[in-house]
């Protein structure tokens, strides 16, 4: 199939409008079905027993008493999930994370699970499972874990990425490095150098819907899985691999998803539910509690970052360097690597070097969280950039504009940029009225930039035209933020019909070819490309059918504004045929009309944003208030601008929570002390002002409509923007996220004490 994905610069009719979403009515009436809203006849209740210890050897698990409890239909341990990963280290870690194999590696690590007739019996059964633990020393802090004296979490880990393989194991799984030029020389040319260390605490994606699934395995080896996920095809693959099933016999249906933000890209409970169902011979519903969500799913990395940036008197950055240490939980990851790639991506640098260290700790396995790893790196870099601008004596926006990357700049992670939006977002911020608004006492303004790559990936879409001319669009990327609306707009645009004529659904894994997850801001980018391709294939058939109806050559038929038109003087008397008219006749002209598309969407456009915020700090208590917040971001092309605004606002709000409140707090015993929304406080309505947005549209040359991803970049600048605002308001540089009142107060008092 020859599909040309290049940007065509066309004028739009549907794309760029703001219709009501197709899943809206179900969501405002309570009818939409999420993970926990589905039930099967005869289903059992699944519950998971979790380690209360941060690090412990599991000597023995005795499940006999639990098995004898009336109403218990299955009890499983790691023994029921044999290792079928065949040397695939990453999948082995997933398996081990689903059910501890020999060692519990964090507070909350699953060690056993039961399926019983009701929740009460299941809970009782968990209490009857006897686990004999041998406690091991633990480490939860990222800097502590790097010390030579730290307890070793996995003695088979020898740091990768070093010139020579280390002789001893450590908690550092990998070192990665990016950059170009010669930073030593660059710093030699600097008139001013800022050097600082920063820390960020671990946060959770905080989706309001806990993980939930219903698994049903039949004795013939077929199975169904209903689950809230960002990627049901990926879940199918992973579950099939871990359970030794054939992927095609496992049908996975994605429910409505109650928030994911990266946290629903990984399996946890699903293989356990399938194993329970297989053993019990009945469907099993497994829903995590909020406590389990915090202790065992998510979270993002805790980090420790050193930054050094130098500039000449004229404000040109001469060298930039960062060392980034990211916690991965107890399994190898590539989180610092991403941080090291993104850290300086906003800038045009001759000399840049970043080094990342992946660090094991006794905390839950790190999961992606919206532009994973980028916000922490941006916090450190953008804080230092602000400080450097002050040293140089330049306005922070002017300083950034002077050093901003542009088309042709070699990015800090390697490739040369095409057309990009960092400069325009900075210019827009500079001229935004927010920048000139007056500030009161104890108030400070901050701004910061952010970058995210955006992904494409494997995508498969079906477009079926009904006999009445209505169009059903089946996509395989889960709708996390309104993509059914945006993809319907794209189908309507390409076919030349009304938005209301299109109905988009997310198809299950048995109805459509494989699709990668909705992650990396790829949902609308990739699936719109596949939808355009499918629509073009359908148009080809529509033209053929029109040619048949007219009995002329298909070469004389063109498609315009939802109609087939016979071109050329010899067909001058033929009226145009609508999509509906062609569809109505389809039974006589060759049967159903459909367009199919399978492709790898490449060339996702990188995305940049600039945020501005005003914060008031109470110098007596360290409490903060967000007074005003503005997001400027490049969307490439906003397919449904209201939902693009929603992504900008939502990402900003998550970043505000991260900057000011949210953190995992571990006790000396290695246990998580705040696994609930009362003590892990995400922003509520009264914490925030309206969040102003400005959408810029710098077309992505690799998408027919110029679309870039929009979902993730908005969480990248807030940590730094707020840190800069708080630092300006309080008169003291804040280097530790979250800037909770005690941390701010301590910083103010330390400054007062001199």
């Amino acid at each position, binding site marked *: 199939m020859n599909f040309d994905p290049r940007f065509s610069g066309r004028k739009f009719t549907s794309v760029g409008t*703001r219709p*009501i*979403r197709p*899943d*809206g*009515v179900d*969501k*405002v*009436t*309570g*009818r*939409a*079905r*999420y993970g*926990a*809203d589905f039930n099967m006849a005869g289903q059992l209740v699944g519950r998971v027993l979790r380690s209360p210890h941060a690090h412990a050897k599991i000597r023995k698990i005795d499940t006999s008493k639990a098995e004898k409890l009336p109403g218990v239909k299955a009890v499983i341990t790691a023994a029921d999930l044999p290792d079928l990963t065949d040397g695939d280290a990453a999948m082995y870690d997933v398996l081990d994370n689903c059910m501890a194999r020999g060692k519990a590696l964090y507070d909350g690590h699953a060690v056993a699970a039961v399926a019983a007739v009701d929740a*009460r019996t299941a809970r009782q059964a968990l209490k009857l499972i006897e686990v004999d633990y041998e406690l091991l020393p633990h480490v939860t802090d990222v800097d502590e874990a790097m010390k030579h004296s730290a307890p070793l979490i996995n003695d088979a880990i020898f740091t990768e990425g070093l010139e020579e393989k280390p002789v001893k194991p450590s908690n550092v799984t990998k070192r990665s490095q990016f950059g170009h030029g010669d930073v030593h020389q660059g710093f030699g040319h600097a008139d001013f150098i800022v050097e600082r260390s920063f820390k960020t605490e671990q946060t959770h*994606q*905080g*989706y*309001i*819907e*806990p993980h939930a699934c219903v698994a049903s395995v039949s004795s013939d080896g077929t199975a169904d899985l209903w689950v809230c996920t960002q990627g049901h095809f990926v879940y199918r693959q992973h579950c099939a691999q871990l359970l030794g099933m054939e992927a095609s016999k496992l049908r996975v249906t994605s429910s*409505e*998803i*109650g*928030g*994911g*933000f990266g946290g629903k890209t990984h399996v946890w409970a699903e293989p356990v539910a399938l194993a329970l169902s297989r053993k019990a011979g009945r469907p099993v519903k497994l*829903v995590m*509690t*909020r406590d389990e969500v915090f202790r065992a799913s998510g979270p993002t990395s805790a980090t420790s970052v050193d930054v050094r940036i130098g500039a000449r008197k004229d404000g040109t950055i001469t060298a930039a360097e960062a060392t980034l240490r990211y916690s991965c939980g107890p399994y190898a990851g590539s989180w610092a690597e991403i941080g090291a790639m993104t850290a300086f991506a906003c800038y045009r640098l001759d000399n840049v070097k970043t080094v990342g260290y992946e660090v094991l700790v006794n905390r839950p396995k790190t999961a992606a969280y919206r532009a994973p790893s980028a916000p922490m790196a941006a916090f450190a870099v953008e804080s230092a950039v602000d400080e450097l601008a002050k040293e140089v004596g330049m306005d922070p926006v002017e300083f950034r504009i002077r050093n901003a990357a542009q088309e042709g700049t070699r990015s800090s992670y390697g490739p040369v940029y095409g057309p990009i939006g960092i400069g325009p977002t900075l210019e827009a911020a500079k001229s935004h009225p927010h920048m000139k608004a007056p500030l009161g006492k104890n108030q400070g303004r901050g701004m910061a930039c952010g970058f995210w790559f955006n992904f494409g990936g494997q995508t498969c879409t079906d477009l079926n035209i009904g006999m009445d001319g209505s169009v059903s669009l089946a996509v395989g990327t889960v709708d*996390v*933020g*309104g993509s059914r609306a945006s993809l319907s707009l794209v189908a309507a645009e390409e076919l030349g019909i009304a938005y209301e004529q299109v109905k988009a659904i997310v198809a299950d894994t048995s109805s459509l070819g494989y699709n990668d997850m909705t992650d990396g801001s790829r949902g609308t980018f990739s699936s719109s490309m596949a939808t355009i391709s499918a629509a073009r294939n359908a148009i080809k058939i529509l033209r053929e059918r029109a040619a048949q109806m007219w009995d002329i050559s298909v070469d004389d038929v063109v498609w315009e504004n939802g109609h087939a038109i016979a071109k050329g003087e010899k067909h001058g008397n033929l009226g145009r045929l609508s999509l509906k008219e062609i569809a109505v006749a389809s039974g006589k002209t060759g049967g159903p009309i459909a367009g199919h598309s399978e492709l790898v969407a490449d060339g996702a456009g990188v995305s940049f944003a600039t945020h501005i915020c005003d914060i008031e700090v109470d110098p007596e208590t360290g409490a903060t208030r967000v007074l005003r917040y503005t997001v400027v971001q490049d969307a490439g092309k906003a397919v449904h601008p*209201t*939902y693009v*605004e*929603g992504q900008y*606002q*939502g990402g*900003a*709000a*998550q970043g505000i929570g991260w900057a000011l409140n949210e953190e995992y707090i571990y006790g000396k015993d290695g246990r998580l002390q705040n696994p*609930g*929304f*009362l003590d892990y406080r*995400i*922003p*509520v*309505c*009264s914490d*925030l002002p*309206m*969040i102003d947005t400005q959408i810029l549209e710098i077309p992505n040359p690799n998408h027919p409509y110029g679309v870039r991803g929009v979902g993730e970049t908005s969480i990248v600048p807030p940590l730094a923007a707020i840190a800069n605002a708080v630092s300006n308001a309080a008169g003291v540089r804040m280097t530790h996220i979250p800037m909770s009142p005690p941390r701010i107060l301590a910083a103010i008092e330390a400054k007062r004490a001199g």
Partner: protein
Amino acid sequence: MAGVAVSTTINGDHVEYLCQPDETLLDVLRDRLGLTGAKEGCGTGDCGACSIILDDRLVCSCLVLGAEAEGRRVETIEGMAHGDKLHPLQQKFLEHAALQCGICTPGFLIAAKDLLAKNPDPTEEEIRFGLAGNLCRCTGYDKIVRAVQDAASVMKGA
């Protein structure tokens, strides 16, 4: 454990059910009565996704026992629209795109309905504090506040 027989009114309909003494009203609604519009986001009264109105009072149904509904009036999201006519709040949430994933939406709508019943002309600040018991992780609340403001002005005019 012996079940408790409960006779109550839900969305105007007389309903009878048996529940366990320690069973929450949320579990009764969802698991026994098939009213899954109220969601469990936390089970500890912190997220508001399970909000219902119990005798004109906004409550988290995860903090109420099923047995406590005896002889009382329960309003859930399923009773908010009149037939196929959406409540103005529901309509405005759609028009303002005040929902993304939608899991918190039933709770917000119930809380907003309760707020406007008690204060038909709230300021932005009153809306923000009135809805502070409901968590939303997707929207940043901006469009939710605007939808409630718009619904309030429509309802005043009606």
